[in-house]
């Protein structure tokens, strides 16, 4: 499949590894990735900070840049959430009904990475190998704007060698919230403190998520406190083939079903992490 990559401005500026990994992963799966250079930003920061007038040209830019493609993918639940739930509304509130219709059409073919892999490409075992202890933060907009459910966990559970552990209170916000992190720095930090406590409780070496923004926030706190825990984007784990030779990786990829069940034990608990009502998760999900 020919897939256009919407990099997002944050990956463009400070987190290029997530973009590279997205490209490498999709190419390894046999797809063609296109990077339309006209892209800049979805405009979410402007919309959410109260600047819809400034966001309008960014919406238009997104529409014009990605309109020609069949499928668009972004390594961000939040930016796809903005494309899907804000773009048409921003256009319409400015009386641009035609643009709103085009934006809605493009939103329908714009996918977050785990959605693209599981729903569109129909794959959960992407042939990755990542021998690390990892906990996964599901991110608010992936959960509650996009409703990706447990798709990221389905993908992670199929990664060879991974020791995936459930994050307590996983569905609670990390406190980033865009400009909220600066405008309400104290409250944001209080939320971050609790998220970091949960991450550290898992004894994981890696905290993963599908959004570079949340990772920038959680990672910034973990780094400040010298916790020794790193943040890594979901795409980087799925692209990784640590300790696997090229040939072997290809082989295990085709033999998808069997290989990952062997490693299943420790992950069964993490599997429960994705049920919808957040309040009940803690009761049902066993800590690793």
């Amino acid at each position: 499949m020919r897939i256009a990559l919407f990099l997002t401005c944050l990956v463009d500026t400070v987190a290029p590894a997530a973009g590279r990994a997205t490209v490498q992963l999709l190419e390894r799966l046999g797809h063609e990735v296109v990077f339309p250079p006209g892209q800049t930003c979805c405009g979410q920061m402007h919309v959410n900070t109260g600047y819809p007038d400034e966001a309008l040209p960014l919406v238009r830019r997104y529409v014009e840049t990605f309109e020609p493609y069949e499928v668009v993918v972004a390594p961000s639940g939040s930016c796809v959430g903005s494309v899907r739930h804000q773009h048409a509304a921003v256009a319409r509130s400015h009386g641009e009904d035609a643009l709103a219709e085009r934006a809605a059409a493009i939103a329908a073919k714009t996918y977050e990475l785990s959605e693209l892999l599981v729903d569109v490409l129909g794959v959960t075992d992407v042939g990755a190998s990542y021998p690390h202890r990892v906990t996964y933060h599901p991110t608010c907009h992936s959960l509650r704007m996009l409703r990706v459910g447990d798709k990221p966990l389905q993908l992670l559970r199929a990664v060879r060698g991974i020791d995936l552990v459930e994050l307590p209170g996983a569905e609670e916000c990390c406190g980033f919230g865009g400009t909220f992190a600066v405008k309400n720095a104290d409250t944001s930090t209080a939320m971050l403190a609790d998220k970091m406590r949960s991450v550290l409780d898992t004894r994981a070496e890696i905290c993963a998520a599908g959004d570079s923004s949340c990772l920038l926030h959680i990672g910034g706190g973990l780094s400040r406190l010298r916790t020794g825990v790193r943040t890594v984007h979901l795409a980087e784990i799925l692209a990784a083939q640590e300790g696997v030779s090229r040939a072997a990786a290809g082989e295990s990829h085709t033999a998808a079903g069997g290989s990952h069940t062997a490693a299943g034990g420790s992950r069964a608990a993490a599997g429960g992490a994705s049920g919808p009502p957040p309040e009940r998760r803690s009761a049902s999900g066993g800590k690793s």
Partner: protein
Amino acid sequence: MTQTFLGLPRAVDTEHLRGQPFPVAARAAVADSQLRRNLGNATATIRAKRARVVGEVPDWEALRSAGAAIKDSVLANLDELLVQLESEVTRRGGTVHWARDAAEANAIVTSLVRATGAHEVVKVKSMATQEIGLNEALAAAGIAAWETDLAELIVQLGHDKPSHILVPAIHRNRAEIREIFLREMAAVGLPAPADLSDSPAALADAARRHLRRKFLDARVAISGANFAVASTGTLSVVESEGNGRMCITLPRTLISVMGIEKLVPTWADLEVFLQLLPRSSTGERMNPYTSMWSGAVEGQEFHLVLLDNGRTAVLSDPSGRAALRCIRCSACLNVCPVYERTGGHAYGSVYPGPIGAVLSPQLTGVAENPTLPFASSLCGACYDACPVAIDIPTMLVHLRSQAPHPAAERAVMRSVAYAMGSPRRWTAVLSASRAGRLLGGRRGRIRALPPPLSGWTASRDLPVPPAEGFRDWWTRTHGGPTTPSLPSPGPTGSDVAGPGASGQRRGGSGGARTGVDPAEAAGGSGPGGAGPAAAGAEGGGE
């Protein structure tokens, strides 16, 4: 641009709907370890209870949709339904009063109480009377108002303010409540027993004895209303302690103050809300004490005060009116990660939490309450929990667009939008940002930045920009576009030159992997590309 609505009545007395800026109040609140612990425990308990009882209703989502639809229909027909309510209440012996704002409502209630000759009243817990500051207005007229809801009693005796819509003393623990009872009860009525323990049963018993005397002495009661059925002029109060029923039935005069949005058309509509409300608020399957009355009963005088206080202004805003669906259940407060850490006082309004961050600025006007719409990380937990499906995050974003922006912030946001308005400018910014690598120390982490970004670096490191950005990597591995050098002087001029610019050229080496970019022509100078952003950046006006 979004429309603004002027000229409709707003809440004139905003004293109970606004406080100090949220970030300032929140800074103190998050540092209060007792508060953090009390709130953490209480919200976690209520969240778990709610999740359990909501989870056992198979058609919960259908109920939510029905609740939203009924309320929307009420709001669309409010003019007719209010008149119907008035005539039905009047027909059944009640008297209906209309209050434009807090001052009018307080004046009406004060004169009604004065007419009875009473110097004290008992009160059922009511958000509307808190919103208008009725207790203070009555006190100024020499009338003592006694709160009879246990938590409201704790707040009143503690000379405190409510911090939660449903559980106003949620910020207090048992030990604190015991102290308040021992210290304060004697001065205003029956004292607490000297050997009072902090067990819930003992505390409730002390409150019950203290309140019993108030109920028996009172000649006037004041309530709010959870619902009013227009077809029969029936008011309803939903409560858990029985104090409401005592107030509604014992005194000779009952005065109810009700926001005009509390209507439902018929009793059948009530069925939906009496399922949604208890499960969402207290996490109970059914409400313990549901009182309903239609007009005045024999031997009792009944007055209904219908309160606008900014509600018609909210109603006139198509993007904001869904807030009037709110049934004050507090589910959004209990799931909010911001509320859980700051508590209700930080919001400075009698309506705290996510719905308060919407409703308070709506009622006062956003200019009067400019920080509340930003008191949210937009995580969306409130929307999921709301029993009438109010899209609180979207409404907060809408209110943010009406807030007055600081000049420096506006300049930055416009500059960023301008840079993002064209890939040439944007890639130039990316190149320039590499200079930020100099800020990182040995570990490649930025630890301190000047204000306002110091808000970030106060508690979080920032990675330095990468040595090789994505676009450089893409060019190196896939061919195609190269990162352009800094644009030539004249910001707009260089953009108009757009399509042929170096940023859009693709190299020949990429083969099939290098996507042809069909949007290239639109890249730099498309009709909407640089133009509007440039206009915005150059002060193109609102």
